[in-house]
């Protein structure tokens, strides 16, 4: 009996993914550990390794297929001594593939007499969601779709806290026609987007259409919602970083330093600390309540091929500079390699975006919902400043804070900026 290769769950929350590439073809011999395919999820591309050894008997889901459900049968592996004739009976035992699959699907679905049950723990419709009885009941009471909620329990089980988080964040709404409130909003959003078939493109020069990756779709969706739904306002301040640069030099120059702290690491630390001192800025707005987070999970925007991603430093305020620096470096590296696991980039209570390395003086960012704020960091440059009535030269960075006015007011934002400026200009306080 051939071994079934199923669409793997690359994270506890993954429900489906794109089969980006097959690294093997039918007839290839594989050993346990060989990379056989690449799977693309929302934001990361990950490799699938063979668990057993054998010969690839049949590839059932073609390269490039989108929306392949977790645990769907994607290929069959022939064990030693089996030849292709073994594949005949195997097809009938395969779980019913989703409609997205084109070719081999009918053979499986049309077979009425499955001789053995599928190995994978999915129901006939393929959409069983692991969830607690309490989570299901609360979701039903709140009109939420349990399938649309990301689970945080063991093996991605949806538990009470996930349903409550979805309720608070206003996500996970059941998409039934009855959800009348959501429908017009979605329609309004769609009317603003533009299709390739739009006549306007006929008037424009020739172009190459690069299909939107999952990451691009996510960026487009979330930032459109943010720009449309969140009343942003910006606060800007100049801070002097000469003392910080001196301290950085001293720390990095210490004997046996197994870290290299960047200016950005200092700013991450300072921002996190300032947020713990002005916790009213470490918040998220929901319809019923403002959620005040009890720790700072700092998301850091990292540019990657084809988009950007925001890996998260958990509980950043309580971490030392060396720890922060090493963690930030590791996350950025793995972000560029597309190797972050979803837990490492989903969440975060606040974001920092730094375009200083490109010489940008200052800029405004769009908030990453449901977070309440985002800090934009410009380039550190020598500028003339007035000190005690005389002209002097100082290294200055311009910081711009964008906040969600629904949960953070001007004076609160300003209090945070004041705290942040104080910490950056007297950086020794960061060491306390």
């Amino acid at each position, binding site marked *: 009996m051939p071994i079934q290769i199923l669409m793997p769950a690359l994270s506890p929350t993954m429900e489906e993914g794109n089969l980006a590439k097959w690294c093997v073809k039918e007839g290839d011999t594989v050993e346990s550990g060989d990379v056989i395919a690449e799977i693309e999820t929302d934001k990361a591309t990950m490799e699938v390794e063979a668990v057993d050894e054998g010969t690839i008997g049949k590839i059932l889901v073609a390269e490039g297929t989108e929306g392949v459900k977790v645990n769907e049968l994607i290929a069959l592996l022939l064990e030693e001594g089996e030849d292709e004739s073994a594949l005949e009976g195997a097809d009938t035992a395969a779980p019913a593939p989703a409609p997205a699959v084109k070719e081999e699907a009918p053979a499986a679905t049309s077979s009425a007499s499955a001789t053995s049950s599928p190995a994978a723990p999915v129901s006939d419709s393929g959409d069983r969601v692991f969830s*607690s009885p309490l989570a299901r*009941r609360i979701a039903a*009471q709140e009109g939420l779709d349990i399938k649309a909620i990301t689970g945080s329990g063991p093996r991605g089980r949806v538990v009470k806290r996930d349903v409550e988080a979805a309720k608070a964040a206003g996500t996970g709404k059941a998409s039934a026609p009855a959800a009348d409130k959501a429908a017009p909003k979605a329609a309004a959003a769609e009317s603003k987007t533009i299709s390739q078939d739009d006549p306007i493109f006929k008037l424009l020069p020739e172009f190459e259409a690069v299909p939107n990756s999952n990451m691009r779709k996510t960026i487009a969706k979330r930032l459109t919602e943010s720009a449309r739904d969140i009343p942003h306002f910006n606060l800007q301040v100049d801070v002097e970083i000469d003392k910080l640069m001196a301290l950085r030099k001293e720390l990095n120059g210490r004997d046996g330093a197994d870290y290299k702290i960047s200016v950005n690491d200092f700013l991450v630390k300072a921002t996190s600390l300032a947020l713990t001192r002005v916790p009213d800025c470490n918040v998220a707005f929901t319809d019923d309540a403002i959620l005040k987070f009890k720790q700072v999970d700092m998301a850091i925007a990292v540019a990657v091929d084809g988009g950007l991603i925001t890996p998260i430093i958990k509980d950043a305020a309580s971490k030392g500079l060396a720890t922060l620096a090493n963690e930030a470096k590791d996350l950025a590296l793995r972000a560029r390699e597309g190797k972050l696991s979803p837990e490492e980039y989903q969440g975060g209570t606040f974001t920092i975006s730094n375009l200083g390395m490109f010489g940008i003086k200052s800029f405004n960012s769009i908030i990453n919902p449901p977070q309440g704020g985002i800090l934009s960091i410009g380039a550190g440059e020598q500028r003339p400043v007035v000190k005690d009535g005389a002209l002097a030269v100082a290294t200055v960075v311009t910081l711009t804070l964008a906040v969600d006015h629904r949960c953070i007011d001007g004076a609160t934002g300003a209090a945070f900026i004041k705290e942040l400026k104080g910490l950056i200009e007297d950086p020794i306080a960061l060491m306390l």
Partner: protein
Amino acid sequence: MSDTTFDIIVVGAGPGGYVGAIRAAQLGLKTALVEANHLGGICLNWGCIPTKALLRSAEIYEHMKHAASFGLGAKDISFDIAKIVQRSRGVSKQLSGGVGHLLKKNKVTVIDGYGKLLGGGKLAVEKDGKVFTTLNSKHIIMATGARAKSFPGLEPDGKQVWTYMEALVPTEVPKSMLVIGSGAIGIEFANFFHTFGADVTVVEAVDQIMPFEDTEISQFAQKTMEKRGMKFMTGTKVTKLDKAKDGVTATLDKGGKTETLKVDKVITAVGVVPNVENIGLDAAGVKLDDRGFIAIDGYCKTSADGVYAIGDVAGAPCLAHKASHEAIICVEKIAGQKGVHPLDKSLIPGCTYCQPQVASVGLTERGAKEKGYKIKVGRFPFMGNGKAIALGEPEGMIKTIFDEKTGELLGAHMVGAEVTELIQGFGVAKTLETTEEDLMHTVFPHPTLSEMMHESVLDAYGKAIHF
């Protein structure tokens, strides 16, 4: 010892420390466990385990006294306190040896000495006040536990005023006794000494015994124990102990009214304080919380990088099973294991081994109301359970509390025979987030005491059969 660098060092070999060390070793980490006294800590040597051994003797003695009601004859029943204590010590010794064996099997390096943080990932180990080695590790877990608290004027002297240490190894049963504090420790010793003939009075400062338990359950337990002849004074403070040759005179203050009580011995069981002194917390930059325990995050990390704390020293509830659970969370997080979650303290059960036993998990009725829940409460008495009657244990009840809106099991509270062995059923239910529906659908075996758990849930929804 040639090598002093480890992946993980655990300081303290109680139920937090030794469990953490074993788990770390299982995960392939080079692990050291530093312990100054006994493997197994207070729990195994001077707490949970030896008291259970003493109370087992008390329970059997109690049964023997009532042998006739089972159709049995037992003449001239007697006891030998020295042998009872000897058995208890033997149980501790056996289990402590077992811990040593487990540590050895898992290749944990056990270091006999007193560990003290030096900061920067270093730990000095002392013996007889002298540092004999310094260990290094990026991850040091402090599991130094707690000790008996004492109040001014009520300090134990080990002779007339005891802590659990002396109460565990009595040479004779005092004629009369005052137990200060009605938490698990106080109540258990009160039961033990009362069973063997002491005239026991328990004094509790707040208005109910076992203050963390559901009031209805506490009152039930108190009434049952009073029927057996124990005395309780709630809302009462002990302000002074005057020691004389022939006994101790305690001055009691009950809401402004003063009275005195003369007893042979006093046991103070007024809670515990964490062992945070002289272990180098300042040197390492480890901060305490506002109650004096080491402050930790959900994964037991302290304010100092590379230093962790678990168990009693890291905050209430000071229970062995909480320490062990934190140990696993802490070590698995350090080892980078997937699926590690912070401990949900609302899921920690509590057990008290008095007669009748008391066990609970989750919110009390008062606690649930204070949190704003509209609740449904179910109760089922031992009197309605066949197995309880057959056992000759008709006193007790099981109480369940549900959120009316969602059917969430908010809390379960039990008093009666063997309930400490039943409570984990509701612990599993709460952890898996079952609602009343799943509990009702569960088949409970007959005849067992556990059927009362089912009936209590049914009663909350007006569906109880046997009452």
